[in-house]
């Protein structure tokens, strides 16, 4: 019988939640790396027992941990992320040039085919890769060296490269996103990059349709349709059907927010229905909690524009948590499971594609990331 393993990164450690295919009863292990921030954990699609974790601390910096037994044991691997060549500068909050400084790894994306190869998205924004299971990391400097790099400016949370999507049909193509620079694509395995922000409109930057400067919160793709991307931006939900060359707004009927719509952090796609997508609208841009104190996942079965609130099993009063950008994932069982974690420490699961929800755990530290593995 199939099993599901949920990898949860929190402000104070990692947790691993496991269930059978019914997804009703869960075993919880952890905290792993107690006291450390776990920005992200992810398993290798090529070897589900090979896990990688980004462990960081304001005191002791960055660690990368690797497991070869599904998270039962871990070993530290190389934590040396050194920018290629002379790092140069990006733009600081006050507009002045600021040296590129490594702070932490936000996201780890294992190769689709090789357990030893992993991509790491870091703050200050850059893309690194290991091809030896984390024993050494090298920057793909073409990303940070994109001609617009000196003009990138951090969002409130930092200049983080937080989204990495590997194209399953084209190993030369990778999509990434940076707050607050925007989305980028390489078609030559990371040597050169193209900004793919045409169609985005951001009123909070001087030129709302600029090539870069957009605060992209997250991007998702269904593996069967790698040219179709879904984006949750600082405001607005968008889609592209040409690999990011042009985006169109599909915010549609998401909740009104003082005349605007569509703020949120997470976005994900149903495992079997490429036009079914999920977001969690958040009131903002400074409040960062659900509208009206009601935690609602919104689902569109039409690839955007037409959204329905999903509320069964979710708190519908006095709920003021946030759901951060990497804190939603889906499993690939026949009835697609959807999972998300909150800054209040709850991890909710829906075994029926969002129709109903229940907490797996509800008192963890603030959840930073959720990933799901569907195991044979």
């Amino acid at each position: 019988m199939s099993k599901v393993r949920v990898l949860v990164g929190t402000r104070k450690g990692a947790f691993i939640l496991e269930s059978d295919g019914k997804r009703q009863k869960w075993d919880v292990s952890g905290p792993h790396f107690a006291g450390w921030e776990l920005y992200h954990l992810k398993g290798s699609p090529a070897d589900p027992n090979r896990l990688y974790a980004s462990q960081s601390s304001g005191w002791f910096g960055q660690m990368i941990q690797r497991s070869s037994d599904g998270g039962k044991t871990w070993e530290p691997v190389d934590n040396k992320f050194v920018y290629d060549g002379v790092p140069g500068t990006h733009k600081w909050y006050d507009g002045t040039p600021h040296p590129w400084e490594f702070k932490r790894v936000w996201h780890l994306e294992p190769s689709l085919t090789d357990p030893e190869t992993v991509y790491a998205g870091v703050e200050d924004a850059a893309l690194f890769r290991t091809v030896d299971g984390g024993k050494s990391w090298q920057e793909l400097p073409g990303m940070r060296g994109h001609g617009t790099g000196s003009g990138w400016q951090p969002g409130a949370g930092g200049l983080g490269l937080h989204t990495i999507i590997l194209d399953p049909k084209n190993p030369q193509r990778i999509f990434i996103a940076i707050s607050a620079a925007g989305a980028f694509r390489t078609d030559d395995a990371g040597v050169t990059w193209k900004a793919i922000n045409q169609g985005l409109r951001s009123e909070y930057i001087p030129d709302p349709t600029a090539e870069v400067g957009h605060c992209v919160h997250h991007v998702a793709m269904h593996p069967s349709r790698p040219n179709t991307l879904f984006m949750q931006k600082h405001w607005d939900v968008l889609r592209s059907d040409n690999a990011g060359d042009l985006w169109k707004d599909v915010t549609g009927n998401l909740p009104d927010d003082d005349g605007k719509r569509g703020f949120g952090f997470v976005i994900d796609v149903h495992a079997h229905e490429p036009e079914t997508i999920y977001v969690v609208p958040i009131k903002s841009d400074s409040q960062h909690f659900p509208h009206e104190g009601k935690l609602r996942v919104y689902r569109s079965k039409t690839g955007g524009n037409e959204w329905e609130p999903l509320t069964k099993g979710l708190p519908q009063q006095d709920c003021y948590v946030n759901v951060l950008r990497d804190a939603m994932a889906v499993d690939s069982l026949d009835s697609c499971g959807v999972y998300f974690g909150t800054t209040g420490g709850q991890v909710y699961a829906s075994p029926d594609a969002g129709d109903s929800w229940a907490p797996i755990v509800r008192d963890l530290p603030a959840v930073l990331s959720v990933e799901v593995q569907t195991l044979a």
Partner: protein
Amino acid sequence: MITVVLPAHLRTIAGVSGDVQLDVPPPVTQRSILDALEARYPALQGTVRDHVTKQRRAFVRFFACQEDLSHESPDAPLPDAVASGTEPFLIVGAIAGG
């Protein structure tokens, strides 16, 4: 032998349960102790000082003989009591945050 006291998180990373004993050739300085520490426990590289600049991480402090030596030169000789092993060299996670 030099005695180094690590904070709990770094003991976990290093895989040790107590104080660390290091053979450090003279002159005994912050740099020579940290060089020896990182050589013995490579997983600690980058956790106490920057990989490249070798600067102490901002929220890490170095204490010995009831003194805060954090702002001393990394190449300044440490007190004789540390060099002789009668007093430990303490690596401390500063009180910061909640």
